[in-house]
């Protein structure tokens, strides 16, 4: 039965005519709104109002210590922002970081999910261990990784020097800082991807896969023709989530490098914090925030387009 059919009143049921019946009918008509009103109020107060306020602030000259005495300057902050070469560097780093986080995080998570999708002794234990990275709070994880990356006494350089190689400046060289941060990001994101994809993989009907095998399909073909189409919507959704989280990720980057060295890990959000709290310029920092928001919305729009295309092709 379709959703529409479920919602429609069955023709055989007579419409209530009494006052009490009309009252309960009115109440039941209002009930959905009652369910929606609280979340809607929450979103309005804690999401849309701050968002609107941020957009407004981005059109003003506002100092951190004096937010109530702002001066409307139109697109002045955006003119300054787009005229600043540093902004394009920050934007590029944000895009590179977010894209790589999606590619690597989803790839590693997917591989782990495929490995865990088949039964083997101790599977539950392994799954629990692999989830560790996702369960650790970001700040704690960043502090642990700071020690791991420590140039003099960190675990990684102990291994590297043990292999007879030169110490690596994991967080203090412009070449290595971003890859090091990506390593921590993947360590955190991949378990989440694994968990979601594992659930998706387990929903793939076994009989369809078996039918494909009987038809002579090899493992790769079964994955491509049966498994992948089934898990594709989940894969797209998880990629969208990882991308949006990466665009707005702050704590790990700020704690590990603070945007350095020489701005090599300075993403939009790290820059936003710097402009707000070092330069005390709330207007300009809001402009950075709005750019980040637009970026996230663009990614969401691409995801929506993919969804529409898929639904159209399914309905043909």
């Amino acid at each position, binding site marked *: 039965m379709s959703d529409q059919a479920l919602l429609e009143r069955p023709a055989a049921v007579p419409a209530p005519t009494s006052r009490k019946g009309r009252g309960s009918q009115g109440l039941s008509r209002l009930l959905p709104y009652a369910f929606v009103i609280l979340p809607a109020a929450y979103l309005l107060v804690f999401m849309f109002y701050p968002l609107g306020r941020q957009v407004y602030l981005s059109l003003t000259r506002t100092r*951190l*210590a004096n*937010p109530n*005495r702002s001066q409307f300057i139109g697109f002045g902050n955006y003119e300054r922002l787009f005229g600043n070469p540093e902004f394009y560097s920050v934007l590029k780093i944000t895009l590179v970081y977010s894209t790589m986080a999606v590619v690597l995080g989803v790839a590693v998570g997917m591989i782990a999910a495929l490995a865990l999708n088949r039964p083997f002794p101790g599977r539950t234990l392994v799954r629990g261990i692999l989830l560790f990275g996702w369960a650790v709070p970001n700040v704690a994880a960043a502090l642990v990784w700071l020690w791991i990356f*420590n140039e003099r006494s960190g675990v990684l350089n102990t291994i590297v020097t043990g292999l007879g190689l030169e110490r690596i400046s994991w967080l203090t*060289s*412009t070449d290595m800082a971003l890859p090091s941060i990506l390593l921590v990001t993947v360590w955190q994101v991949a378990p989440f991807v694994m968990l979601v994809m594992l659930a998706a993989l387990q929903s793939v009907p076994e009989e369809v896969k078996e039918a494909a095998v009987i038809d002579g399909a090899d493992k790769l073909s079964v994955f491509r023709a049966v498994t992948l189409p089934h898990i594709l919507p989940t894969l797209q959704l998880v990629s969208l989530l990882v991308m949006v989280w990466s665009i707005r990720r702050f704590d790990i980057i700020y704690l590990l490098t603070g945007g350095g*060295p020489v701005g090599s890990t300075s993403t939009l959000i790290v820059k936003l914090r710097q402009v707000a709290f070092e330069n005390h310029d709330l207007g300009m920092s809001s402009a950075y925030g709005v750019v980040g928001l637009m970026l996230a919305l663009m990614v969401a729009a691409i995801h929506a387009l993919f969804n529409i295309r898929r639904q159209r092709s399914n309905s043909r």
Partner: protein
Amino acid sequence: MTSILKHVFAVAMACAAATSAMAQDKVTLVVSNSQWLDALRGEGLWNAVKAYEKTAPNIELKALGIPSKDYGDRLMTEFGAGAGPDVAIIQEGVFYALADAGLLVDVGAAAEGVPLNVTKDNGIVDGVTLGVPWQRAAYALIYNSKLTEAAGAKVPATVEELIASAKAVQEKTPGSIGFTARHQISDFSGFYMDFQSWAYGYGASWVDGAGKLTINTPEAVAAVTAFKELYDAKVIPVGDDFPTQRTRFKEGQVGFSIDNSGGTLNIASGGATKGSDIHAAAMPFAHPGAHQQIYVVVNANSKHQEEATAFLKWLMSPEGQAGLRKASGPDMLATDVPLDPDFVAANPWATTFAEVATKSHSVLIPGFETETTQIMRPVMEAVEEVLINGTDPAAALAKAQQRVDGMF
């Protein structure tokens, strides 16, 4: 029976009313400071301040401790939102930002008739006293005499000598560290404040007489070049954050460091290195270095501005200063209260800090106090570029000059 009950009820009501009146008379002043959370001297400082309640029984002081990393951000946000503590003990940078926003009260009455020393100067903005001095933490060269004597390393008077002495320490004691210094932008605030000692030490001034920002001067280039030489000498624990470096000094693993008096007090307390093994000397530069100045201010949003100003007046009095002296270790105070002789006997390094604090300069750029962090960001990124990528100091600072020129 009813009559007795009536009397009891009346007495109870009278007592309740009296208690309520007393409670209403009592004013609570919230005093914020990141130092309240300091494991070593937080309690002592708070007790020194809390002693005011004996002088003013109608006042109750309530401590608001906020971690130093978030302190400035949080206070500025709270003050800007029309809230915040009645009294705040704040770094000079935050002081100027709040003063610029008109969020501080004139506390000139607290300083009337008090022989305040040179630390008062920056608390007066456009002729109005908006803050009275709390502490000044100046920078000096500190060293672990056990390590330096074992290595036969001399107390350096130049950067070249510092490099030689730091290397000597490392060679003599395997596993030891020659010199510690902040060197990463991830600790931007501390990095730029520490680096000011190098810049000022080489005679650099970030602003000229006409008020133009001067970043790529020969003096600044010389300072960056010298810092780079030290960085390349492999005597610094590259990658260590500064709390870790201080802990290493505390544990007796470090020969030399340039640190402020507050940091040195931390190093000298509660670790393997005794205060008597730590010594201090003037920094190995031709000119005086920097200091961090802290002021006490009254919030313009406070409902108890008069009481808060009276508290500040007591703080500036001989009684208030004497209490603060005991808890402040080597830091310079608002008045010239001599260091505690017992403290100096246990910490021979303290007197050097007291001396250098009279000649040192603020970490803030004169005339650009509220914009200093904004200006120092490209400067410190240039320093980092020199350290990491080996960029020519003159070229890196020229680029920083361009960025700064485009700011205002």
